[in-house]
């Protein structure tokens, strides 16, 4: 009986090890590959025998990658700020006030989050060109609202609804206007929810590809995902894999640090957005 239990334990930890290797290995391999210079890249070695930073230098000299990172930061941060601002007031209305058409509005918001991006591509292209925002970061910020806004509104509405009613009642009895109620009563309580939704919106904007590919033209205006997808080396036939891996590591590490710091919040945000929705 004890042996059976021991074998069971052993099998269990083997399973755990498999899961870890499976999830972590591809990224580990990217790091290892990015540290191999020259022909070292073409030998399968699970540990780089003489690590070199050539690929990391190559990324920044081969294309305006620094500029691409800056673009991504500007776009993602703006998207987060704008969508949180719009979503907080909207979530107050949807979560705390009974009015006609609220159910319909929530349904509209949820439906928009299901839109395939390609379904709005031609209309969005026309709109962005008409606004004179083609090949412009503002155009990207505006278009990203289509996927961050429904999500932030939805999660914040769920959060708002669960706050105790007494808080608001006390403020209203004191004669506070709805705006004061939002900014003075709810906003201080919403810190955790704002961090979670903001982070998820940031990641979504940081990773977006289709709009960034379609609405920018020059190397200088590209965001990171587009830059990484379009890195081309000197040779027409072989991609500069070392540079691509280095670029991949550069943009992923900050993201992973954020995710590790806020992992509990992210998990609760994901489940609030999906399980409860």
């Amino acid at each position, binding site marked *: 009986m004890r042996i059976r239990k021991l074998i069971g334990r052993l099998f269990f930890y083997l399973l755990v090890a498999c899961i870890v290797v499976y999830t972590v290995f591809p990224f580990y391999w990217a790091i290892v590959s990015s540290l191999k210079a020259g022909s070292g890249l073409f030998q399968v070695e699970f540990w780089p025998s003489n690590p070199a930073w050539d690929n990391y230098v190559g990324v920044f000299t081969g294309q305006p990658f620094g500029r691409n990172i800056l673009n991504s930061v500007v776009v993602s941060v703006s998207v987060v700020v704008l969508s949180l601002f719009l979503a907080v007031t909207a979530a107050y209305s949807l979560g705390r*006030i009974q009015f006609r058409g609220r159910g319909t509005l929530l349904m509209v918001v949820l439906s928009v989050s299901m839109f395939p991006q390609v379904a709005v591509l031609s*209309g969005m292209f026309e709109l962005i060109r008409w606004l004179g925002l083609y090949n412009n970061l503002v155009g990207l910020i505006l278009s990203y609202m289509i996927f961050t806004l429904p999500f932030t509104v939805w999660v914040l509405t769920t959060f708002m609804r669960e706050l105790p009613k007494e808080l608001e009642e006390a403020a209203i009895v004191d004669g506070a206007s709805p705006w004061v109620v939002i900014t003075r009563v709810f906003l201080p309580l919403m810190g955790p929810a704002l961090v979670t939704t903001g982070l998820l919106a940031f990641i979504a904007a940081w990773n977006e590809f*289709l709009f960034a590919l379609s609405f920018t033209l020059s190397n200088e205006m590209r965001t990171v995902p587009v830059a990484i997808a379009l890195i081309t080396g000197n040779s027409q036939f072989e991609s500069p894999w070392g540079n691509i891996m280095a670029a991949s590591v550069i943009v992923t590490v900050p993201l992973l640090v954020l995710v590790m710091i806020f992992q509990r919040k992210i998990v609760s945000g*994901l489940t609030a957005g999906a*399980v409860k929705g």
Partner: protein
Amino acid sequence: MTTPSVTPSFPQRPTEGATATPATVAAAPGISRLTRQRRRAAWLFLAPMLAVLALVAGWPLARTIYFSFTDATLYDLEYHEFIGLLNFYYLAIDPQWWRAVWNTVFFAVISVSVETVLGMIIALTLNAHMPGRGLLRAAMLIPWAIPTVVSAQMWGWMYHDLYGVINEIFLFVGLIDTPRAWIADPSLSIYAVIAVDVWKTTPFMTLLILAALQLLPGEVYEAARVDGINPVKVFFKVTLPLIKPALMVAIIFRTLDALRIFDLMYVLTGNSRATASMSVYARQQLVDFQDVGYGSAAATFLFLIIAAFTVIYITVGKVNFDQGGK
């Protein structure tokens, strides 16, 4: 999708006054002044969000659907003629389009199924008590957080036909006897794409299932263990029925996501016909071939499919909007 008017001059439903917040303050006939003020504020606060949504979602969608009935080109969007259903006719007789539809459906069904099973196994494992569980859950978030484009490139390198680590490992283990061109071989590439998607999105599935598992009452399992019931039986008779609602939502979420997949195929295999999804096909027509009318028709078709799925989701998921989606 138009911005609603700010003046809330609705006829009142009889129950509303009672359910609204502290309406007892003023005993005005009908509804209180406070309630009315709050309703007006509600629309005022909603207006900016709704205006932005109308601008970036409603309007472009309407224009896309409109373009699908025209012969507009990207070169000059303004000069176009109404050509009725001609684009849809061409779409219906284009074998490449049907290939894209098939690719997308095949991709969605296989990858979501594998992700569900795999996600379930991993979630059950992580749900067990063991040291370092938090660390494991953090590791699960790695594939989820990595941008799809980066995942595609990372795997593209691992799939490399000459220097790829996957060929190396598979040769070593004996799964294959000669190196394979995972990306270039049209019979393999769709599976290569599916494998990347499974790797990237299983964590999402795992976390959702894990969240559902942790809400389960412990007493049931205690009772089952005391009665000496086989764990496999417990899983199918107790666990699965209990987490089924959450699981259904997760599956539908992932299916909707998989049906609109674009970046994975585009980065990994370009516009290759063997893997092109509906989104890839539509974008190629729209941007590369500049055929906005035809590309919009394809995009509209995809939109209709997703819309149908969304309706199913809302009915099956029994999302109750007045309760706030609980």
